[in-house]
């Protein structure tokens, strides 16, 4: 596709995009209900909403992945049909997905021209793209080495390639879906500088996020979605995070965690010089030393992929490591017999895994079957050497579901039938109700709606105050700051530094997360 394919766009309205009465149902689920929204040209327009509010569906309709059941799309004032993504690109819409769609072992240039090659020979497209990339780098701080392989780039740079792809296709309207989920704070700031630059050039940007701080920082207008409906649109300057959160949830929420000061006790977990080399021979943990005390929360901050997952896996008995570890003063084997997940649980190490869909739950198991996951050897759950006591597990599940307010409180419902927040409550109920010596918890509120986040945070604090040690891994810096008593920052398999949470701030931690001390 070349520039000549694009007809000069009529500039008859102030709106780059106008959606009128968009509805979309998947079977019985109404994902979008009569949605209307106007996006002013040359602005950054935020769309916020909880998981499942219908943001992604709406954007997928705009990008031609789904067809709306009803409603109209106007691009620059003209009614436009968008049956597929090619039409969306022709209409000047570019999309940067949350999960990048790049060919890992292609170079940046090759990725940029992929699917938009001019003719059968690559060379002309490549040199055109090279020239363009040079201009864009100068103009918008979008610098990426055009000949680098994508797999060698940092996540932040990979995201720039996605933006470059859209710009190469002459997008006037850029949609970014949760763009900062994988970025360090400084990378996110850089992204926002790029977005402001693009806006100044007259581009229109739609930013989908669940981080209210970003909305306040960078957008001109903001629209809030809840349960498939557009509940409000406000100029950003005339709203506040509190109001937006209330609009998202439909009721008042506590954004701050009420937390009495910690009363740390004895050291529960002591780890020295932990090392892990993965199957590719890459060193994932390069000498981690830390300790966690009873009655305190140690937060591990860091950008995803800097060894936090490996650290959790080692401590939970899912991965072998070198080094020393002690639990309540007794040696904790890190490899070989006695280092498995079953022994860890027996010793009072509970684990809420980062990925509840893959690890924390068997999605097709019913809630009560999931309640026994990892505790299937527990005497209370067994009726004989072979037979499990299903009735006892069922009763236990009912009690725990009640206690953790899991909705619906139906132990016979399969895990996949619960919402994200309730799935997480199931996992937390299983791991926390046993009052473990130490709770390892990874991304406790990922994909969880705001109402449930509040509840989960309260439960973690409650467990802390009962005297359990908690090791918290999260990529949400706000969450780390809100919950932790001490914060250790990981970068590239090392701990870059440790801070008392009341004596640090996001800027300082952000620098540590980027590997700067």
């Amino acid at each position: 596709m070349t520039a000549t394919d694009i007809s000069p766009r009529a500039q008859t309205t102030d709106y780059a995009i106008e959606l009128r009465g968009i509805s979309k149902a998947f079977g019985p689920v109404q994902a979008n209900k009569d949605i209307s929204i106007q996006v002013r040209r040359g602005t950054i327009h935020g769309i916020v909403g909880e998981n499942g509010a219908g943001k992604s569906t709406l954007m997928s309709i705009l990008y031609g992945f789904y067809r709306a059941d009803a409603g109209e799309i106007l691009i620059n004032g003209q009614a436009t049909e968008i049956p597929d993504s090619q039409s969306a690109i022709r209409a000047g819409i570019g999309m940067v997905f949350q999960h990048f769609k790049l060919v890992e072992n292609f170079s940046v240039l090759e990725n940029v021209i992929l699917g938009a090659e001019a003719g059968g020979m690559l060379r002309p497209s490549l040199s055109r793209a090279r020239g363009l990339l040079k201009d864009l780098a100068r103009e918008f701080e979008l610098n990426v080495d055009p000949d680098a392989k994508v797999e060698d780039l940092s996540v932040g740079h990979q995201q720039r390639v996605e933006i470059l792809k859209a710009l190469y296709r002459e997008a006037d309207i850029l949609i970014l879906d949760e763009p900062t989920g994988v970025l360090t704070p400084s990378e996110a700031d850089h992204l926002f500088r790029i977005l402001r630059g693009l806006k100044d050039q007259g581009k229109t940007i739609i930013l989908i996020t669940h981080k209210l701080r970003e909305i306040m920082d960078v957008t001109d207008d903001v629209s809030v979605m809840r349960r498939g409906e557009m509940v409000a649109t406000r100029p950003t300057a005339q709203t506040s995070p509190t109001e937006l959160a209330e609009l998202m949830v439909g009721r008042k929420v506590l954004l701050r965690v009420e937390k009495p000061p910690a009363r740390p006790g004895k050291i529960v977990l002591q780890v020295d010089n932990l090392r892990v080399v993965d199957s590719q021979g890459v060193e994932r943990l390069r000498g981690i030393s830390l300790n966690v005390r009873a009655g305190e929360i140690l937060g591990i901050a860091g950008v995803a992929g800097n060894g936090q997952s490996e650290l959790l896996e080692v401590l939970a008995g899912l991965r072998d490591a070198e080094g020393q570890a002690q639990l309540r003063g007794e040696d904790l084997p890190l490899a070989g017999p006695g280092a498995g997940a079953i022994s860890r649980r027996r010793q009072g190490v509970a684990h809420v895994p980062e990925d509840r869909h893959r690890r924390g739950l068997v999605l097709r198991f019913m809630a009560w079957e999931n309640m026994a996951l990892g505790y299937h050897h527990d005497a209370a759950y067994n009726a004989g050497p072979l037979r499990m006591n299903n009735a006892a597990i069922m009763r236990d599940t009912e009690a725990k579901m009640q206690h953790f307010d899991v909705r619906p409180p139906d132990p016979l419902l399969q895990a996949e039938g619960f919402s994200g927040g309730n799935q997480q409550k199931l996992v937390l109920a299983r791991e926390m109700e046993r009052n473990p010596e130490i709770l390892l918890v990874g991304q406790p509120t990922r994909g969880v709606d705001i109402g449930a986040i509040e509840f989960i945070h309260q439960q973690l604090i409650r467990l802390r105050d009962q005297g359990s040690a908690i090791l918290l891994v999260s990529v949400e810096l706000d969450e780390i700051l809100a919950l932790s008593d001490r914060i250790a920052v990981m970068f590239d398999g090392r701990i870059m530094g440790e801070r008392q949470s009341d004596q640090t701030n996001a800027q300082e931690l952000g620098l540590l997360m980027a590997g700067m001390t």
Partner: protein
Amino acid sequence: MSAKGRIPDWADVTLVPLVSVALAFMISAILIWAIGESPWEAVKLMVEGAFGSSYGWGYTLYYATNFMFTGLAVSVAFQARLFNIGGEGQALVGGLGVALVCLYIPWPHWTLALVGAMLGGAVFGALWALIPGWLQAKRGSHIVITTIMFNFIAASLLGYMLVNVLRPQGTQDPSSPRFPPETALPSLHEILALVGIPFSRVPPVNISLLIAVAMCFVVWYLLWRTRLGYQIRAFGESEPAAEYAGISPARITIYAMLISGALAGLMAVNSVLGEQQRLVLNAVEGAGFIGIAVALMGRNHPFGVFLAAILFGFLYQGGAELALWTGIPRELIVVIQALVILFTGALDNMVRIPIARLFAQARARGR
């Protein structure tokens, strides 16, 4: 938020297979009509041949017994997401175990011989499945490939054993000697005669049928009531979650394959000891492969396997009658069986998705 809604379990186990089978029969009817025969007459003949007399029932149930064992074998492995294609070979080697036990141990009574033969068949079948299971667990060799290969090795092994070891001197037939008469299992005719029900003495259906039905229950109990079954199912549904729970993938792979192989090996009690009373070259006759179709159709649930095994028993026996009494060629009967497998196994979603949609619409209206 997927278009593929959920359907109730009862519909999953009954409605979907029934519609699939109905579709397969419709196409079969068109085929029969196209070669100039009457589909209606063919159906009548099949049903009468399979269910119209105790003779027909006897054969139907004999085949169904084989299919229950092999179907359960495939199901147990599949609950652990292991696709055991090797039921055929495991049943062959199980037959060898049964034959050795019956030939070389002087059994005083059939009850003891039955226990011995079950052990022999199960252990040999299990060991034959253990090797691919171990290779998968420890070396990552794909179980589909290795179990297929082991079918060929089993056939060769059996040929060698029959020709060079078990064949009585002076005979040309590659088969073992007849088992001693003390080992002969009571037929269904004899069992039913005890309670005064007349049943044809001709068909080879025997007490193994009851063992197969009992095994359906045992497998259900194993999978849904025991800790091992829980671990097998957890591993099958999600390997990362099983690891998280401290379930060893290698151990579960090996256990599941042992149980699967043992069930396949048990089939030989029916065919080798129950029917032939000696070991012959082709003792399994494809029942190991039919077991895959039976498990697919029975949704890997023992109760479903039970029903599917009877359906395939009907297809076998009814098909044989059809070939005997009509101009419909033998090949077409294989085609009909293949259509049933195609629709119940491979084209499962073709039926499932529209049914799911109907349920979703009904739910939407109900609201």
